[in-house]
């Protein structure tokens, strides 16, 4: 009986685990998809207001954050190669760099949001109540979409941090690294969503 118990716990299927992660990533894309639909409908209905409101956003900060995320996607991908070369130290360094970059993204976001809030642009503020319908919608979507994205950054950081702990404990190694790969996939998703958010809010004006 006990042998069987062990057998169930040891059931391992890397291909299956990755398939599951991919499907989960589809669901995340669809989750944002609902917000993208709302964005496109309201942009179509209020083109001028969206144009004016988008000019309020700081393209430089947005660009820096885009570069940060792209580089962090690269470092997490490199860490997956590093573990396959059995280089534990390099793996941990690269994952650490990914986490630092994620943190830098969040710090940037903090300054960006607090700048907006100090100008009186936040949901329910007096300034926005006097603004046009389209601007109200634009900033509502801005806070909701970048906020939900920031939440995903935090979840991704926790996930990568947990996998780092597994690497330290040698539970993730060159022949058993599917969870590292999955955390990398998740991180690419977070990156990918930003790649769509960046032009929609900062570039198309």
């Amino acid at each position, binding site marked *: 009986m006990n042998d069987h*118990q062990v057998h169930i716990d040891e059931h391992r299927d890397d291909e299956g685990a990755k398939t*599951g992660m991919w499907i989960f990533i589809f*669901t995340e894309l669809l989750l944002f998809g*609902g917000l993208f639909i709302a964005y496109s409908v*309201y942009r179509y209905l209020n083109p001028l207001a969206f144009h004016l409101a988008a000019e309020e956003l700081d393209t430089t900060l947005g660009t820096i954050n885009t570069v940060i995320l792209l580089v962090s996607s690269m470092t997490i991908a490199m860490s997956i190669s590093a573990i396959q070369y059995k280089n534990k130290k390099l793996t941990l360094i690269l994952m650490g760099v990914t986490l630092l970059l994620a943190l830098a993204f969040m710090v940037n976001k903090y300054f960006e949001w607090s700048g907006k809030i100090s100008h009186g642009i936040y949901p329910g503020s007096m300034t926005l109540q006097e603004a046009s319908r389209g601007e109200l*919608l634009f900033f*509502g979507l801005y806070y909701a979409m970048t906020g939900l994205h920031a939440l995903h950054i935090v979840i991704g950081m926790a996930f990568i941090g947990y996998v780092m702990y597994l690497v330290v404990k040698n539970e993730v190694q060159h022949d058993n690294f599917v969870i590292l790969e999955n955390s990398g996939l998740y991180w690419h998703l977070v990156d990918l969503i930003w790649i769509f958010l960046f032009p929609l809010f900062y570039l198309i004006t």
Partner: protein
Amino acid sequence: MSEAVNQHTEVSYLEYKGRFKGLFAWIFSTDHKRIGLLYLYSMLVLFSVAALLGLAMKIELIAPGKTIMDAQTYNSFFTLHGITMIFLIVVPGLPAVFGNFFLPIMIGAKDVAFPKLNLLSWWIYIIGAFIALSAQFIGDGPPDTGWTFYAPYSFRTGTNMLPAVTGAFVLGFSSIATGINFIVTMHRMRAPGMTWMKMPLFPWALYGTSWIQVLATPIVGVTLLMIVLERTMQIGFFDPALGGDPILYQHLFWIYSHPAVYIMILPAMGVISEIIPTFARKTIFGYKAIVVSTLAIAFVGYFVWGHHMFTSGMSGTALYTFSILTFFVAIPSAIKIFNWVATLHKASIDIQTPFLWALCFLFVFMVGGLSGMVLGALSTNVHLHDTAFVVAHFHFIVFGGTGYAFFGAIHYWYPKMFGKMYDKSWANIGLAIFFTGFNILYLPMFYLGMTGMPRRYYDYVDEFHGPNIVSSLGALLMISGLIIIITNLVRSGKHGETAEADPWKGKTLEWTVASPPSLENFEEIPTVTKHPYGYE
């Protein structure tokens, strides 16, 4: 022969002793069979409560004016009835209970692909249920929007909407996790030799269902999240006062909630496709047609959501597109009906309780489906929109479809799940009373709707009195039938006769293992060479 050996060498999953004892051995078990039963017991409790709420509403409607409750209580009753029945029972129902229990066994696997995720989804389900139901007891009174949470009323009502919406959001994750788990299980863990076209039809139905769960649930998730943000932080999405568009809410809500109807009905069709060949002792007619129509329903089901909104304001082109697509989606359902009936043709039928449930399913499902066509046609829809006709159609298809299949499934697989046989004559009596009550309850509502009685009102004019009395008496009869059925099942768990491994002479893999199955289902993973319904 090998079954008898199995029973002696391996203890069943019910008796197996793991790391934990007592209740913990269940709520922390990653065994797919125990998780299935956890869902079953949770749902049985919730279903009983929600059914009694339904009965209370029918008693209120037995006479015009206030009978036993005021308007506000009635509003919160139909909201709670809807939220519980839809989000907690019908949507997760068949996949979570019978899918969990039988999917791995039917494809010859020892468990699902991610057993821990499976347990987590039960926990998310319970947490979501508590959050949703807490709305009834805390804050400013129970929600009164109906289960659809239509904007802008859902932001304006003073009642306690947040927990209800948040609960439904959380439940979505449970549904997604189960969906992912099942898809990966079917892709990766089918027994050697079981090609896709040798997979039984219940797993096939679950496959279609799982894809809908995975691809549609996130949309309602984000929509409900938008309501939460709108209510808590005044971020404008759907409230015109904040610049939003309430019609967009309806679109987003139905983009999920219409495919959700197929989450409810596809596994039900899967169950019927298992029961019918077993008792007809005959290979199912048109196996491939059933598979293809399952996938077709899952696919076309995405493009028909607009038929819930024919009176909300859409362009003419959108209206007829949605209407014609609605008619298209009926075709695969009709193909299945044809296949089931053709399976019965010239069969030597063994009439047993599960088979009777399947027959009743065919009847009520056809009434529900054809009345759906009446609603899918534009001109009649405008007349019947938001009347009791819709309620009757909905209950025929959802309660009649999924509910009958659920009870059919329980009577079909009960001996396998518990190793006991229920009292067949009481089961048949219960079914007869239930079926009679069901029709007396819902058929008059078609008539009431045609003559103009609106849904969701606690009161009506005197002209509607007669049919309402009939309908309410039907409700009492139906609930009596339910009590007999459930009591019989519960009682037989203790006092029933011991069941054999294959009491119905079924051919799918679950009938080759012991009743109840051992922890790992199979001592050795079987190699499949034959078609699942190999009778001839």
